[in-house]
């Protein structure tokens, strides 16, 4: 499936704010990102598919938008 990734905060510094990717589900997408971008490894990240937060592996459809967001600590 061709999908779009949107990133936020410090994750955007690693991946860029938007990128295209291909994956069948969120687990395989994240695994391939960890592999290509070592700086992501071990990060606590929030994943959302089409603007809904997910925790379990989620199947992806063509043109889905996956948001990857780190926690922010500043105040």
């Amino acid at each position: 499936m061709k999908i779009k990734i949107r990133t936020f905060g410090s994750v955007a510094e690693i991946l860029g704010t938007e990128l295209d990717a291909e994956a069948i589900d969120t687990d395989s997408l994240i695994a391939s990102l960890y592999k290509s971008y070592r700086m992501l490894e071990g990060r606590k990240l929030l994943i959302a598919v089409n603007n809904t937060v997910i925790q379990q592996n989620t199947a992806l459809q063509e043109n889905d938008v996956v948001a990857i967001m780190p926690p922010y600590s500043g105040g």
Partner: protein
Amino acid sequence: MTEIERYSRHYQLAGFGKQAQEQLAKSSVLVIGAGGLGCPVLQYLVAAGIGKIGIVDHDTIELNNLQRQVLYNTNEVGLPKAKVAAEKLRLLNPEIHISEYITYLSTENAVGLIEGYDVVVDCTDNFATRYLLGDACMLLDKPLVFGAIYQYEGQVAVFNVAGDNGVKTTYRHLFPVPPSQLDAPDCNTAGVLGVLPGTIGTLQATETIKILTGIGKPLCNRLMTINLLDYTSLILDIPENLSACPDRIPKSLQELEKTDYERVCGAESLLDIQTIDASQFVKMADDRDVLIVDVRELDENPRLTFPHVPIPLSALERNLWIIDRKKVVVVCQSGKRSQTAAGFIREKLGETYQISHLEGGVMGLENA
């Protein structure tokens, strides 16, 4: 009469009026943190006429705060934020009650402080306090207006308030496990655009007023993010079926009191870090299998006189590839940054690496 004059623009406002204004006067709000987010939150809530406001902050005003913490003046550097804020806010609106608490939010005082207020606003600047506050509000079923910032971007959400479907969510639904502080650098290390906390804090004050008066649609079970550079904004739904990682959340107030949040937040990876003293360090410095990493900034003195690699903490993440040996000793000036950096290296590179850090830092080495 002055009250009518003061709030006349609220009275005139369609959909708000006398009823909503009276609701605010009957309400109480506790603001945790009187920094970048806390300043606008406090100013707008005090101006709006919330009946009772509490301010919790242990910090004193620093010169580098003034670029964004607009409640403070240059001649107040060194004074406690909670005290200065309370004094100024009383001048802004003498008709409401303001209490200042010059203290850290801790597992000992959290419940006592939170219980006395209707709504809590999270204006903290570190994960340990955020998780403590989030867990305490969840256990007390207290509405929590969350805000957090990073450089040019901010997050806002309303926790522990039921959405249309009756479900309540918390910060743990977004990030069940606390990250380490290095995973999400704070304003001190990453910098922040001065107006960002103004924007996000104003949104937090807005959400607080919406919850208290029942107007509009607050961000219950939703997380809003905004980027000031291009105004891209996104609202994520937090579905009810998510687990908030229940095994990690204290299940009672008694358990909360026993939780060490400083340790839970980021210190997890420190468990496997060895601490070495100056004499052990001198021995290890001769070992060719050991890589010594100096995480001080490049202009800090004295420089080390034996073989080592300098990787400033601020550039550690992108330079981890330099670490080419399995035994690593991390050093800094006092032993504080080296501990953080050692935990980070351990977490990123994994268990096959043996990581230690020099207690007391280079300063301790000098004296030994």
